[in-house]
């Protein structure tokens, strides 16, 4: 009995995505890693192929597809040995805020453009002084007639440079309560006062245009607010579940890939007169890794199934996020170790994977925050 039931259509979709990535993404990845950004043209190509925002309802240009399509796309993206083309962020994290909470007008205006790849999206929560403590954000959205005026600074924003459309979390300075004072607004790039102030240099995700964003008297219509006034924090709490699930997908698929590719490479490489994978003390280590990866996969697939059935996954996804991301880091560490000296050479694709994996334990809520959530829900 399978945990997830893939149909013929799902499998065809996977094949199409895989072959598209092999032909149009993988060959350019090294170049994108160097330039620190992906070209907008590849996003447009993704849109043309129907790989963006598959979950958006048909009436807004999407496929109205289930979450397995998102899972497939994220898993296949892992195979491309880079993270810059952060389509899962656009498809399954940012755009769902508009689909779920946007007014009819916002949905009509933006969803088709997000599906076509004409607009790349990002979401800005974190600030220099507000990371884990999301409720303490200082960015303000002050009402002024029919507009709101946004002031503040956001950091570590993925797709920050490429984004055409940004969802920003800001607080109403007239409300003192941190939770009920928070709202989400849609801001278009190019709006006066919205500056993409700095592209950030980081250990991994080097093809991803993570940036710092600055807002100075940035004026947007009140109608750009998502959902009911004062519900920003609640919307974030709801949608962060799927965001964390995506971290688990990247972690598990990443660990599977690292193990598979390392076994392939080290099965051919000889050390002490034997293939590395056959050296006695390595064999147990490999089995241990394979067991962990397998546990991660079963946990993940079950979570995906629960999520698709609409069950609450808050506790499970918090546990899965810290466990799978730490597991992926352990696997990455061991894979480099098996490679010996070649484990520190950047032309070894496992080295990039090692650098890329590390952030999974930090973003979308650090692993400490994940444990804290589980503690709360388990009444400990």
């Amino acid at each position: 009995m399978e945990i997830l039931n893939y149909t013929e259509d799902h499998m065809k979709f996977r094949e199409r995505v895989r072959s598209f990535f092999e032909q149009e993404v993988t060959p350019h990845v090294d170049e994108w890693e160097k330039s620190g950004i992906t070209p907008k043209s590849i996003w447009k190509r993704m849109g043309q192929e129907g790989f963006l925002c598959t979950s958006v309802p048909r009436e807004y240009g999407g496929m109205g597809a289930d979450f397995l399509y998102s899972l497939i796309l994220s898993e296949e993206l892992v195979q491309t040995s880079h993270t810059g083309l952060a389509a899962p962020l656009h498809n399954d994290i940012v755009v769902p805020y508009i689909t779920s909470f946007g007014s009819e007008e916002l949905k009509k205006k933006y969803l088709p453009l997000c599906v076509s790849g004409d607009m790349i999206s990002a979401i800005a929560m974190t600030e220099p002084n507000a990371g884990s403590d999301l409720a303490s954000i200082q960015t303000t959205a002050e009402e002024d007639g029919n507009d709101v005026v946004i002031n503040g600074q956001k950091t570590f924003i993925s797709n920050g440079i490429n984004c055409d459309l940004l969802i920003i979390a800001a607080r109403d300075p007239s409300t003192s309560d941190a939770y009920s004072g928070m709202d989400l607004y849609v801001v278009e790039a190019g709006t006066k006062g919205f500056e993409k102030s700095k592209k950030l240099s980081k250990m991994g995700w080097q093809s991803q245009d993570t940036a710092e964003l600055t807002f100075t008297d940035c004026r947007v219509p009140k109608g750009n607010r998502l959902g009911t006034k004062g519900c920003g924090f609640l919307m974030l709490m709801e949608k962060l579940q799927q965001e964390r699930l995506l971290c688990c997908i990247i972690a598990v698929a990443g660990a599977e890939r690292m193990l598979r590719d390392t076994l392939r490479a080290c099965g051919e490489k000889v050390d002490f007169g034997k293939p590395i994978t056959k050296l006695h003390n390595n064999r147990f280590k490999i089995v241990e890794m394979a067991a962990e990866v397998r546990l991660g996969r079963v946990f993940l697939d079950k979570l995906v199934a629960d999520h698709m059935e609409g069950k609450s996954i808050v506790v499970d996804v918090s546990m899965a996020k810290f466990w799978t991301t730490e597991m992926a880091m352990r696997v990455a560490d061991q894979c480099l170790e098996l490679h010996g000296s070649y484990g520190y050479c950047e032309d070894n694709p496992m080295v990039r994977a090692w650098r890329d994996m590390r952030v999974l334990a930090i973003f979308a809520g650090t692993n400490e925050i994940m444990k804290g959530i589980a503690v709360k829900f388990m009444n400990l």
Partner: protein
Amino acid sequence: MDFNLTKEQADIQKAAREFARGEFDPDRILEWDRNQEFPVSIWKRACDLGFQGVHFPESYGGQGLELLDHALIIETFCRQDSGIGLAMALSDFGAEMVLAQGTDEQKRKVLPFTAQGKGLMTLAFLEEGYDLLTFQTISHKNGNGYVIQGKKSYVTLAGMAQHVLVVCQAESNGPEEQSIFLLTKDAKGIEQAGMGDRLGMRMIPMQAVSFHRVAVTGQDLVGQEGKGSSYLREFLNTARVEAGAAGVGIAQGAFDRALDYARKREQFGKAIITFDPIKNKLADMVTRVEMARGLVYRAATCLDQKRPEDRWTLLAKMTASKAALEVANDAIQIHGGYGYMTEGQVEHFYRDAKTLDLFMESGSIEKSMLADQIAGRV
């Protein structure tokens, strides 16, 4: 049993700390790491001030101090910056082999040269698929001399080093019989090729070095013909102590930064150091640092007391490089998103720690060497 540093050792540590704090410029560090460039200016200053080769005898340009003193300097430099510290430690890679086995002439040629900042040296021993017992690089006997043929990989600073020690399989001898030669980099037949970018230890460029019928004389032989494997083993004991000291310094440096950040960073209205998970992480980090430091100092002391034991040097390097990796990993986590950014500095410590763990011989190989030793004694 006295676990305290002597006054002299503490003074050396303090001087190294002041030097490192004063001279290791954070902007230049980012540049050197990014460009994979050896920090020549810092190295020259360190030599001028007498921080390099302190454990060489005074007659060979050193200060006649002990390996532990040298280890303290490496640790202290790595604590301030992992990249520079490792580059300083590897600027004279192989020197201790010349010190232990070289002729007076070889020592005069090499040791003052590196200690006084005139040039770098390196040791070429790793090969693809190497196992420390049999190398593919062979020294053929040729009249009174030898001809070297083969290829070495991961040779540190090969492009800059004036002197190169090369470990060869001695022709027509048993599998564990090796000979070691001291060459200059302009010897005819030596060719270098770049080895691409590295994850860490980026201030130490590495090359693959090919030897095409390189002719050497008996005077270039270090120690006796066919005894190379025991010299290499003896040298690796020293090198593990140096690498271990670097590991302790990296771990301590990552811890310093994490502690500082945890005190300053406020979330949920309080400094994050007040939260139990952060406090506990810091306690774990200190545990690892001190375990590693104890083993490294012990291993250094064993060598200084002329009681070389592979067991202690293996324990020291394994524990210290793992401590560096784990502590730097925790330091990143405490820094959150900032820890993943280049300017947060700890990611640089983390990359260097991972590379150190795989450098020379990986932690898992060290563990199996230790396991063989233990089982052998039963």
